[in-house]
């Protein structure tokens, strides 16, 4: 399989008033051509910073201490700003949580898309206008001819996100990075936007990085999943590996902590005690140890490496060490997974 993007041992800190915030602490992952990789984790775990590093839009107080980012064989971090601009504009499309911040409030929608085409694709104006209208139709804006001449505030949240997607598509990207694109939207609008992204991906064979904290959205979108915690990837696998055979205690808690439509009323939810660590003082050992029911002595001293579970599945937990005591996932999570598999089987006939 062709790797379109590869990130290796990325370390990033921020110079902040209170000291150095160690936001990314050794992140490695790759993206295959045409697949969707979901990055899932709680807020503050480093999802956005990781993608900002890939697109080189980190704020000024960020420092990349170490790491390699390779895009189609090119070393992105070694490029000059000018060389990189070419890639960012033509090959990578970005969609953020808040569509308003990506749009110019005082410019008509049609013009915003047209300008992007003129600037990035060097299209003549007439052609750009026609293409902009086509893009608006492609992302499902009704009455596109009329809405071409309207301003962002005249669009609902869902329609604005469609416009942002249209602008991202204007440069014919091969890589689409979506950072919580539906978090601010209602579920029925979210489901329409997810369908749209999937449709576009299929049509254009895009490679997608999809960031979210919603496991339902991950299940819907992802081929593979990276689970992030406190600036590290703690588990990686196919979507089936992660949902049906999770190995890391943090993934266990994520999967078991939210009620789903099958959770019986009043059942105690599995909770992760405490709060995520303060990244000014990342703990020694495994950052998850203080919140982990299964933590062993070693966890407070030494960070676990990535252990291989299968060719597609890796997890950073000492529990996978050959000498570790055998610890199974919690019984009620196991039960939940069995039920889910049964239900999926029933549904798929």
């Amino acid at each position, binding site marked *: 399989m062709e790797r379109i993007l590869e990130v290796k041992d990325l370390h990033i800190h921020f110079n902040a008033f209170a000291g150095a915030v160690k936001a990314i602490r050794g992140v490695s992952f790759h993206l295959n051509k045409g697949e969707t990789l979901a990055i899932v984790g*709680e*807020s*503050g775990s480093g999802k956005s910073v990781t993608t900002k590093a890939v697109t080189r839009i980190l704020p000024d107080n960020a420092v990349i201490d170490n790491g390699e980012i390779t895009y189609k064989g090119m070393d992105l971090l070694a490029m000059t700003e000018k060389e990189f601009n070419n890639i960012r504009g033509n090959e990578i499309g970005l969609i953020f949580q808040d569509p308003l911040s990506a749009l110019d409030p005082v410019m008509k929608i049609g013009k915003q898309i047209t300008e992007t085409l003129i600037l990035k694709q060097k299209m003549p104006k007439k052609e750009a206008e026609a293409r902009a209208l086509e893009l608006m139709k492609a992302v499902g804006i009704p009455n596109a001819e009329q809405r071409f001449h309207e301003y962002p505030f005249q669009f609902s949240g869902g329609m604005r996100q469609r416009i942002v997607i249209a602008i991202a598509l204007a440069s014919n990207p091969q890589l689409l990075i979506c950072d919580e694109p539906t978090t601010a939207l*209602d*579920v*029925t*609008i*979210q*489901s*329409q936007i*997810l*369908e749209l992204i999937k449709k576009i991906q299929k049509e254009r064979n895009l490679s997608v990085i999809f960031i979210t*904290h*919603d*496991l*339902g*959205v*991950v*299940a*819907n979108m*992802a081929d593979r999943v990276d689970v992030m915690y406190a600036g590290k990837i703690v588990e990686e696998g196919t*979507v*089936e590996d992660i*949902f049906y055979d999770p190995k890391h205690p943090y993934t266990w*808690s*994520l*999967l078991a*902590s*939210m*009620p*789903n*439509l099958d*959770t*019986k*009323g*009043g*059942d*105690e*939810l*599995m*909770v*992760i*005690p405490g*709060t*995520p660590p303060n990244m000014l003082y990342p703990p020694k050992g495994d950052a998850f140890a203080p919140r982990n029911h299964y933590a062993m002595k070693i966890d407070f001293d030494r960070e676990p490496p990535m252990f291989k579970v299968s060719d597609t599945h890796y997890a950073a937990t000492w529990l996978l060490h050959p000498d570790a005591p055998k610890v199974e996932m919690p019984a009620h999570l196991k039960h939940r997974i069995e039920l*889910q*598999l049964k*239900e*999926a*089987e029933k*549904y*798929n006939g």
Partner: protein
Amino acid sequence: MDNRTPILEVKHLCKHFYQGKSVMKAVDDVSFHVYKGETFGLVGESGCGKTTTGRTIIRLYGATSGEVWFNGNRIDGKLNKEETKAVTSKMQMIFQDPVASLNPRMTVEEIISEGAKINKIFATEEELKANVHKMLELVGLTAEHATRYPHEFSGGQRQRICIARALITKPDLVIADEPISALDVSIQAQVLNLMNKLRKELGLTILFIAHDLSVVKYFSERIAVMNRGRIVEMASSDLLYDNPVHPYTKSLLSAIPIPNPLLEKKRERFDYDPSIHQYDEQNQPKMIEIEPGHLVSMSDREYAAYLGAKK
């Protein structure tokens, strides 16, 4: 019907906002009741009127029309001092944003005791203080937190403070308006478990407002689904989930992503198009009880069609 006593009855409640010539019918003929000791969920997408409903019930907004009955007394409209006290101390609200709803210049103790002070619930300062400490422990904080300020707490802890503030007056009804929406995933489960524990231990009655149907279903015995200022369907949470009838409820249920990839990737989605109802003067929707305890907003024509299809 149920023969339990309702603690809250909302009858044909309307709350319209007027802006110049335009009218925003945020709440438009909403009726439901909440029984003592139950958790009643009000669910719908943003802007459908959930918060306005809650705020009108607790008298933060005056009702445009309709009635609100609480503990057998009518509480919309003008109330005397005594009646006002009965509402302000016995009905409490928890808000979505625990940051915005806590005064940054007040200590935790001042915040929690404020409502009890205003309503003169406790005879002495000592009794008040003891109760503040009791509340803090009840919600999983400690007495030492009493002298601190809100900014020293995480989002989840602040929501615990809000819950303590709501509970100190020993309310009969708590209106919780999206109490976990602003919190992180792992913290949401902690607060949900806390509310579950309190509900069991204190026998609280809760009107639980949320946009997330899976959370509402987990937490509520009965659920009302709201759309554009109206309730479109109301039933026990199991009935609503197993047999949704209104096309909006179906669309909402189908849109919730389920964290089960082999199922989720194949699921069918339904879009809701309000124009399919073709309501007109002769054919207006009303709440029809299609099976015991299951009410759906339907016109007579739609009900006839529903019965026909069932056969």
